[in-house]
Structure formats: C-alpha cells, structure tokens
C-alpha cells in the first residue's frame, strides 16, 4: 500500500472511532505518533472528501470533519457491489463461493466426504 493510501486509512479510522466531528488539529493529534504536518492531514482529508468518504462542516473559522458513512455502511457498500449478481454487471467481479440452498449444501457435503475418502489425508 502506498504511504498516502496508508495515511488515508489511518485518518478514516480516527474519524470512525470519534464520537463527534473532528478538526484537522484533532486528527493530527490523534495520529501524533506519526508527526504529520498540518497540511498533510488537510490534504488527506480533502482526498477522502473527493472519495465521498468524509463530510465537512463549518465551525467558526475552521472546518470539522466526520465520516460520511459508518464503517459498517462502507463495508456493506463494498460487499454488495462485489456480490451484485444482477445481469449485465455479472462480469464485474468474481468471488469464491455463493450461498447454496440446503439440498445443494447436503449434496456438497456428501461429495466432499466421498472426495476425502478417495484421497487419504495429505495434510
């Protein structure tokens, strides 16, 4: 992961863990072990805004930032997009396994048992 990507992830985690909107300074303090410049934090927040991950609101003369969607919302956005099986978009992504109904699950387990019986354990 690039340094910038890594920073974006850290900043998002700070915002996700915060109870209220944060100023740039707050974010900088939360990540103080990294000794980031104020402008660096601002750049990262801008980039996250462009990705629609961060919302900002004016507070006096400065801005305060908060996550545009919660961690859980963002996760389900990613997964829904990945698992979207609808027609024309089926080509977008491939994923390892989809859920099966109980009858198929039983057939699968049976086949697995047969397969493991055929090939004595190798590891």
């Amino acid at each position, binding site marked *: 992961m690039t340094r910038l990507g890594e920073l974006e992830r850290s900043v998002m985690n700070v915002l996700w863990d915060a109870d209220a909107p944060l100023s740039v300074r707050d974010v900088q303090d939360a990540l103080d072990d990294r000794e980031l410049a104020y402008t660096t934090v601002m750049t990262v927040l801008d980039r996250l805004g462009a990705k629609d991950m961060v919302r900002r609101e004016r507070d006096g003369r400065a801005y305060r930032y908060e996550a545009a969607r919660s961690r859980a919302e*963002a996760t389900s956005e*990613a997964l829904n997009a990945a698992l979207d*099986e609808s027609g*024309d*978009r089926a*080509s977008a992504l491939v994923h390892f396994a989809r859920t099966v*109904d109980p009858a198929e699950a039983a057939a699968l387990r049976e086949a*697995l048992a047969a397969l493991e019986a055929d090939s004595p354990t190798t590891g």
Partner: protein
Amino acid sequence: MTPVLLGLIGLALALPVPALLARARWPLRAPAAGIVLWQSLALAAILAMSGAGLSTALWLVSVDDPGPWRVALHVVVLAVGVMVWARFWWATWHVWRDTQARRRRNRELVDLLGEPHGLAPAVRILAEQTPVAYCLPKRGDNRVVISRGTVEALGETELEAVLAHERAHVRARHDLVLEGFGVLRLAFPRVLRTDAPLRQSQVMVELLADDAARREHGGPAVARALVTLADSATPAGALGAGGGSTALARMNRLREPTPHPRWPALLSLTISAVVLVAPTVLLAIPWMVHAWQTLDL
C-alpha cells in the same frame, strides 16, 4: 440467398445452439477449451449477422428489379446486421466504463477498510463475519479481498487454497474473459439475447481457478474451502443469491482424477473451428466472388 442463409446461421448461433450447448455437460470437462467454444459461437453469430447485413446492402444496390417482398426481407436482415454491430461497439464502451468505475470504487473502499494481510501485499481483510472472498483485478495492482469470517471459518491450508484460487483469476485475467461475454450479450437485441455464454463461462473460469488452486494445495483443501464457504449462513437480505449449480460443478471437477481426459477439449476446439470457418468458406467466399463478378461487369 446468401444474406438470408447467413442471417439464419446467425440466428441459430444466437439462440438455439447456445441453449443446446448450455445443457451439455461435456464442455465443462475442459473449461479452457469450453471458453474458446463459447467465444467462437458468439463471434460466429456476430460475423454471420453482420455478413448478412453487408451482403444485403450489396444485393440491394446491385439488383435491377427486386420485388417488394424481397426488398422488405432484405431491409430487415440489413437492419439486424447494422444493429448488432452498432450495439457491439456501444456495449463495449458501456461495459468497460461501468466495470472500471465499479472496480475503482470498490478498491477505494477496500483500501480504506481492509487490513493488509501479513506477507501477501495484495490481500485485504474486511471486518465482516459473512465469509467472502473475491478479487479486484488490475494490472500490477490487484486486490484479493477476504472477510474476517472467511479467515475464521477456514483452516490455514484452505485459506491458502482460496487465495490461490483468487490469484489464478487475477493472473489469467478471467475478468476480461467475462467482460467480453458481457459485451457480446449486450450486443444482441433483447429478443436474440441469451445468458448462456456468460453463465457458462462464469462456471468455467471458476473451474480453471480451482484447477490452479488444486495444483498448489491439493483437491481436498479446495473442496473443503468450497463447502465451508458455500455452506455458511448469510445475513438477512444482501448476499443470498443462489449459485449452487456452480458449486456442484466445481465439486464434480475436484473429484475427477488429474490429468483430465483430452477428448472434451478436442471436441470443443473442433466445433469452434467449424462454426468460425464454415460460414466463411461455404457462403461468404462464393458470395464475394459472385459480387465481384456482378459489380465488375
């Protein structure tokens, strides 16, 4: 006659032939050749239909006294030919752009949400209990995404098998194969459209990725991972699309001994060659010779 014959071949290749082939089991026994077969059928259908359109256009300008019915028939053939071509290019653009945008967004989210995984730089682990594994292919900068639930549900070897499976997708650019079928599917007007090539090739790329994972980690590990992940509970709503036949087809292949028999591959490749070459040799070339003579005189 040529335009109508080519049109009929195009129609046959667009609907009844895929429907028949989708029911056959043997193409799945040689997935790589099977994909070539589906590609050839789709390409041959497009070629036949556009050939029909082209020869119609030439016929319309070169015949002196066509009756109204024959003109009407030929105009229909021409329209279908032109439409298939136009849609093909439109669909190419549309699918490409759509896929790029969706993938970019997914990558953004995954990079923000996912924990990197030990020594495998492309892997991201999402904090999510639903067992999920998928890949976001991009040249030189892939992502393999798995959920915490996947890591917890699988043993070490099974997890490695899943990662090998996803890496095989990424390495062989199976996404491009499927995108191609997505494009071909959109190229045909709705009445002439079939899902079979896309669906069948989705199964076939999974079989190929399983083959790769099996070579590295053995059939039983891949099979255990498949059963564990397919069997796991799904949260309400979102992720429940049924896809059992894929899982069973994969399991059946994992149970076959390797190396696999050669004849399904040979059969697929032979049919591919025939559907691609036969219309050209039997119809298009005589027609071109004929058109050449007619126009030249």
